[in-house]
């Protein structure tokens, strides 16, 4: 028998039992649909986080005391501005080191209040991070040296507190103290679910006095190029460890952060895909079940075909092709619906769903494999039927 005939025969058999074929495919369709959508949502989330991290700036090294783990609360810091000065000397270029001291505080303008993240930092911030201004100016060296009560507002804070009014030169009250607005940042979006547009930047010295501490949370160092990152990272950590023997300091680069976050989200995507894969598996069991029913129903037909000269492998091919057609047609429909679903999710919700060619190829390959895997047992049963007994079957 020629391949084309086997194919035509199998298609014909599926067409004859249209409703049954459609219902059997439904299981595969739902499985493939789930795989495509969940993988695209997972991939989309990963892409989005990676974009956020890259959006911070380039060649950044973050230095914090203690052991750094993503998501864990920062340990009590012993870093101070003196340490920052020390690191500046180690790095060699003082402009490439900035500091950060964060605290949640209430900001008030007239009757309007908001709870925001106050970030104490210095004039070097913009040498390291991408933080464009919408209006006004950045914090200056004088602001830091003279502990000025000035603030640069994140885009959302500015919009919430001042609306259409130009905030430059106006007063805001932070934790009861009065600050003058000198600048407003442009919208930058969020990182790790925290909106950087809800920050208010003040001179680190002012922030220390306001909070009543002389520590800082961490340092950020900007490397001059990608090749500089690792040596610089090691140098800074070694220098701090030498200054404070027995204590631990961590430096993490954007690339490392990307790697960690990427693998966590990649794993999450894998778990989602596996869960969706289970439903595909259930669809495959349905195919197997229906093929067994079909073989039983068509026992006489199989006996006849054998009497007319069909070899075992002709019968095997016929039923196997039928099963694979069921799952691949179901797979293609599932892919089309899944891609449509992902596009709909992306345009109707905030969830970033991104469709990747490999997930589509994988979904198709898996559905074909499911057809072979679950079709082989029924097809073998058909192929091995004794023609004499099969012809006598009811």
């Amino acid at each position: 028998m020629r391949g084309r005939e086997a194919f035509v025969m199998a298609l014909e058999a599926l067409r004859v039992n249209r409703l049954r074929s459609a219902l059997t495919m439904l299981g595969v369709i739902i499985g493939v649909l789930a795989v495509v959508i969940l993988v695209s949502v997972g991939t989309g989330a990963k892409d989005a986080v990676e974009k956020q991290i890259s959006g911070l700036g380039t060649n950044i090294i973050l230095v914090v005391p203690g052991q750094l783990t993503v998501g864990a609360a920062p340990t009590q810091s012993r870093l101070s501005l003196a340490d920052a000065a020390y690191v500046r000397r180690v790095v060699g270029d003082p402009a490439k080191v900035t500091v950060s001291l964060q605290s949640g505080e209430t900001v008030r303008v007239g009757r309007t209040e908001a709870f925001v993240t106050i970030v104490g930092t210095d004039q070097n911030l913009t040498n390291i991070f991408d933080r464009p201004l919408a209006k006004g100016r950045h914090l200056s060296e004088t602001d830091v040296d003279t502990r000025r009560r000035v603030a640069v507002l994140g885009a959302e804070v500015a919009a919430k507190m001042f609306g259409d009014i130009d905030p430059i030169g106006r007063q805001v009250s932070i934790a009861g103290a009065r600050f003058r607005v000198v600048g407003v940042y442009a919208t930058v979006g969020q990182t790790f679910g925290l909106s950087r547009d809800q920050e208010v930047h003040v001179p680190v010295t002012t922030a220390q006095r306001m909070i009543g501490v002389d520590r800082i949370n961490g340092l950020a160092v900007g490397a001059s190029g990608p090749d500089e990152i690792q040596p610089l990272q090691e140098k800074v950590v070694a220098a701090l460890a030498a200054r404070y023997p027995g204590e631990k300091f961590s430096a993490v680069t954007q690339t490392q952060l990307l790697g960690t976050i990427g693998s966590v989200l990649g794993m999450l995507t894998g778990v989602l895909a596996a869960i969706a894969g289970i439903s595909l598996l259930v669809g495959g069991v349905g195919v197997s079940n229906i093929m067994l029913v079909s073989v039983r129903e068509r026992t006489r037909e199989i006996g006849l075909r054998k009497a007319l000269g069909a070899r075992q492998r002709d019968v095997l091919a016929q039923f196997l092709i039928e099963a694979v057609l069921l799952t691949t047609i179901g797979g293609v429909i599932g892919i089309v619906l899944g891609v449509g679903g992902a596009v709909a999710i992306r345009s109707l919700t905030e969830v970033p769903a991104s469709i990747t060619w490999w997930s589509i190829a994988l979904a198709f390959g898996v559905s074909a494999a499911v057809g072979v895997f679950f079709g082989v047992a029924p097809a073998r049963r058909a192929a091995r039927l004794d023609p004499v007994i099969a012809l006598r079957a009811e």
Partner: protein
Amino acid sequence: MTRSEETAWPADLSISSIPAIEAVDLTRRYQLEGVAVDALRGVSLRIDQGEFAAIVGPSGSGKSTLMHLLGCLDRPTSGVLRVNGVEMSGLSESRLAELRNRTIGFVFQSFHLLARTSALDNVALPLVYRGAGRAERRSRATAALEAVGLGHRMGHRPSQMSGGEQQRVAIARALVGEPKVLLADEPTGNLDTRNGAEVMAILDRLNSESGVAVVLVTHDQEIAAHARRQIHVRDGLIELDTATAQATGQATGQATEGAAEGGRPL
């Protein structure tokens, strides 16, 4: 016979010298829940090219079992079977399927046509397993349907045809591959007298015109009378074969009575 002798003879004579089917001492034992049933207990028989033979015998005597063996649908428990000169015991499953496809045509009591499939496609089915192309299948199936007088029913499905017509489609299917032997197990069993007679007329005509050997099983004496040769089977043995009976000079009537004890004439 050597090859040179064969070519020297007229074509039809040289073909008829190889028997279409030759069975020597066939037995078939079924195992049914541990109990052995001997359906055939030693059957020897030779069907020549172009012969027309009827197998008769009581129910359960082993007629269908014999037909399945002759058609290579089943393998004997012991004994030798040669189909068109080919010894079947050494053949693999797929070679056996090929042998069936090329040399045997089956006609069944219950037609066994594929439902929801046109007469033409039903008839063309054996050619599919031979790897024939679409155009060839079509033209040969059309010719076969015309040969059984159904040129006007090619697009009909089994459910749209009478029983007689369905059996004629089945005969066309059996003949489309130009087999050496047509094996028909009670081909008229599901038909009324008129349709049965029509089917028999077609088998008669095909046998005499195309030279295909016909072996049919029947309970009907009138149907059996169409055949030039009658083979009586009882309890898994051949009780009487008119071909060998004539060869040994016995009268048919006497032989039937004489072999009633279940003797094995050979």
